[in-house]
């Protein structure tokens, strides 16, 4: 039955990559045509990805839409693709956000438009590849290849300190992931296979697991990013063009979280259980300390970047709190809630952080400043924009009814089952998040018109309204009716918990 389907996953991976190459060949001489082609490719990719959702069978944890072709048989590496309840939503998120990125760059990017669009399309394919890969080497290949387009995007279209920021971004991520490569090779020597699902079944001693866990931790914590390896993110975000910031915040960070779900938790469950205190501590530091850091930022993008780190702390907290809940209550249901909360938080943060960066982009395009002090009273001149910005800010602060609430609520609720104090500290995010976002809104949107730049602002145009309302719809829909997302995950989460709670020793 499934074999009659076209190879959907390969299509969503390679169509944007080939489309990106085509955009390059249309050339910089003809930006109009390049943009039109890029938009077509992005929209088509999103349309192709929709059947992944509609045909998805939520009752099973098995990999779906699988594709299997031997790739490097001598080393038993296969081109093996498939999705489950974790990866499918993230693929849709990627395809969705890329359409917005293309729209966001439509008028703003003037220099080398074709290369800009092509970089994003190629990156889209590679990121989807990361989520769809079921072979460790294939995963690693996509994971690393993604760095090249992002490196160029920040470096070519970025701000004044772009070279520093992009080199830091590249080298941090590269350094983190090479250790993961060695761990994967080591796993291969034990399992005689590069299949991720075989790794899940592989018995390993505790000391092996601890080493491998730390290798994964290095690789993924840089991506997430977790404190203390987060310092590349504010730099990269501030210097990146709007589209780059959106993709970084909405997708790249999620790859780190996804990596924990796909690799660290199921492959090294005993090490994860033993070291869960470490991740929980780091996550709480991210939530509380980075939340405080966000409070004092003068630069809007930097503020949102720090807020991203704090929110991603919630994701890792949700994933790793599961062990503690299981130890305390012996019930898998509470543990499942933490993981689902983390997943919902990832998707929701993808929408919200993307939206906030787009909002900053809208302002930056007009005033060419990201400093909070250069604004004030924007609501007077840009009422429609102000409405959107306030909505996204509220969602970022976790207002009930928006998607930001669902994930945070689930994670805090499950933390309570593990320990009151963890939940207490985690709840700080509700206060801090509200504080820094609302204060940002107060200083930028409300009040008297700050200066003549603000007085001359024009409200958002049709293009910007389309892109912001798409995101607003997503944020509200996920906030009011998260069931379509959570129900796709139940079976997968249960399956993950089986792997996590059964010892591999």
């Amino acid at each position, binding site marked *: 039955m499934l074999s009659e389907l076209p190879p959907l996953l390969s299509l969503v991976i390679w169509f944007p990559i080939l489309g990106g190459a085509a955009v390059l060949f249309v050339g910089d001489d003809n930006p109009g045509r390049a943009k039109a082609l890029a938009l077509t490719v992005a929209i088509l990719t999103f349309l192709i990805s929709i059947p992944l959702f509609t045909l998805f069978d939520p009752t099973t944890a098995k990999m779906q839409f699988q594709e299997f072709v031997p790739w490097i048989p001598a080393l038993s590496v296969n081109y093996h693709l498939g999705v489950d309840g974790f990866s499918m939503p993230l693929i849709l998120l990627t395809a969705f956000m890329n359409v917005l990125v293309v729209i966001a760059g439509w008028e703003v990017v003037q220099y080398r438009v074709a290369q800009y669009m092509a970089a994003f399309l190629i990156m889209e394919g590679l990121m989807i590849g990361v989520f769809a890969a079921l072979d460790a080497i294939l995963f690693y290949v996509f994971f690393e290849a993604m760095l090249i387009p992002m490196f*160029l995007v920040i*470096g070519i279209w970025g701000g004044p300190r*772009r070279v520093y920021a992009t080199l830091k971004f590249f*080298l941090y991520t590269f350094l983190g992931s090479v250790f993961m*490569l*060695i761990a994967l*090779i080591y796993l291969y*020597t034990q399992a005689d296979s590069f299949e991720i699902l075989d790794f899940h079944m592989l018995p390993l001693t505790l000391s092996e697991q601890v080493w491998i866990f730390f290798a994964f931790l290095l690789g993924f914590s840089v991506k997430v990013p977790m404190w203390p390896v987060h310092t590349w993110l504010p730099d990269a975000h501030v210097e990146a063009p709007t589209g780059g910031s959106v993709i970084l915040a909405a997708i790249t960070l999620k790859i780190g979280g996804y990596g924990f779900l796909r690799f660290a938790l199921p492959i090294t469950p005993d090490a994860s259980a033993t070291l869960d205190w470490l991740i929980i501590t780091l996550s709480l530091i991210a939530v509380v300390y980075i939340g405080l850091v966000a409070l004092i930022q003068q630069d809007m993008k930097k503020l949102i970047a720090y807020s991203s780190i704090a929110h991603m702390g919630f994701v890792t907290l949700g994933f790793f709190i599961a062990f503690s809940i299981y130890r305390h209550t012996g019930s898998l249901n509470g543990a499942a809630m933490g993981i689902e909360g983390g997943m919902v938080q990832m998707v929701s943060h993808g929408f919200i952080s993307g939206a906030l960066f787009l909002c900053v982009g809208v302002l930056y395009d007009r005033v060419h400043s990201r400093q909070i002090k250069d604004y004030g009273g924007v609501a007077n001149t840009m009422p429609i924009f102000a409405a959107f910005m306030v909505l996204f800010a509220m969602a970022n602060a976790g207002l009930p009814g928006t998607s930001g609430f669902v994930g945070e609520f689930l994670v805090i609720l499950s933390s309570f089952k593990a320990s009151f104090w963890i939940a207490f500290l985690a709840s700080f995010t509700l206060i801090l998040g509200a504080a820094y976002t609302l204060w940002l809104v107060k200083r930028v949107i409300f009040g008297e018109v700050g200066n003549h730049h603000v007085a001359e602002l024009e409200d958002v145009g049709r293009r910007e309204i389309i892109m912001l309302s798409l995101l607003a719809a997503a944020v509200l829909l996920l906030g009011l009716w998260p069931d379509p997302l959570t129900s796709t995950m139940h079976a997968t989460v249960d399956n993950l918990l089986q792997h996590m709670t059964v010892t591999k020793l």
Partner: protein
Amino acid sequence: MNFVAPDFMPVLPELFVLTMACLILVIDVFLDPQRRHITYGLVQLTLLGAALLTLFSYAQASVVTLSGHYVKDAMGDLLKLFIYLAAAAVFLYSRDYLRQRDLLKGEYFVLGLFGVLGMMIMVSAHSLLTVYLGLELLSLSLYALVATDRDSPVASEAAMKYFVLGSLASGMLLYGISMIYGATGSVDLQVVSIAVARQGANNLVLVFGLVFLVVGLSFKLGAVPFHMWLPDVYQGAPTSVTLYIGSAPKLAAFALVMRILVDGLGALQSDWQGMLIILAAASMALGNLIAIVQTNIKRMLAYSTISHVGFLLLGVLAGDKSGGYAAAMFYTIVYVLMAVGAFGMIILLSRTGFEAENIDDFKGLNDRNPWLAFLMMTIMMSMAGVPFLVGFYAKWVVLQAIVNIGLIWLAILGVVFSVIGAFYYLQVVKCMYFDKPERSEPIQLSLDTEIAISANGLLLVALGLYPTALMGWCAAALSLKGLA
């Protein structure tokens, strides 16, 4: 006394290249300088002919001939094919560069061909004497090539340095060979290997011979601490010669290591493994660290070569059981493809009166010629080992071999220095894409060089998407030797 004529069929490619080289030497003397392209065409035809001869007689099993001095096997044939390919690309890229500098003389091509012949002999050597003969034929051609631009003091200095240090290395090698001969009573690699297996490491003369051989090989490869000549020669030589030295001879050097250490002294693996670990670790560390501070791109690539040699040695020391030899061979071939592209790009950006020698000369290449910038980025990213480019797979198979024998710390060392190395490759990409151009003259390329450099860059992508075939050839070539 019966004289039995040896079987010359396996040596046919070598004989062909030798004959053609002599013929071209004579023809060139009678050629009008305006018609030098005939020499060039003949050289390319020679390489093509040799490639066809090798291809059609591709070895299915090892054949030893010329009284045990020469062997034709799949490893040799595969390496030879890539030597022809690299040499052909070198001549093609160099042609316009040499013409612009009035260096387009027959000597360059003839010496180049003799160098190719030397490499072929090294690759197919089956006795320590043949190894030495091939090596000297190659080295002498290279010394002369470095000095071709005789009015350039830098080039003369480089040639001198290369000659003195190279002779020293040859001396070491010869000294080692004499000790091995003393200990085993033969120069035939097969006899040597049997004798060595019987005596083991107990024979002090043998161990001393081994040390001298390893020192000599390290000189030729440019492994730390015997690397001093490499940056100076790379920088001082005309870029066309740097391109030559930096590419095909690496294949021959790999063959040299395989013939001497593996075929001849395989029984002493536990002894030379430790030496190679030190050489490899030092090469990766020093090469990558010093390359960071270079501003001259030829010098930077020289230090990058040193670090790549370190990685290559990692594969060799991992040994056959872990697939290390096949990994090292794959690494060498891939490295040569990348080096030809990188140095080729430097040549193509140079014009009359202007050498694109500094990393700054690549500034704003994306604005001047996006396609060339893309190709150069491909090459640089491949050297850095970023996936979907073949350089990644080369690093990966070597790391896998190292992890297989349990030297995980060495693998970690390798990847850490790869990350450090990525920095200077990224610097080049940064110059091309993030900086504004300092020059505005258009870059003129003749059609054939443009096609060649495009093919070169795209090959790195294509092999990155489908590395299976090349990996398979390497593994098959070595399994025919009884090594996998």
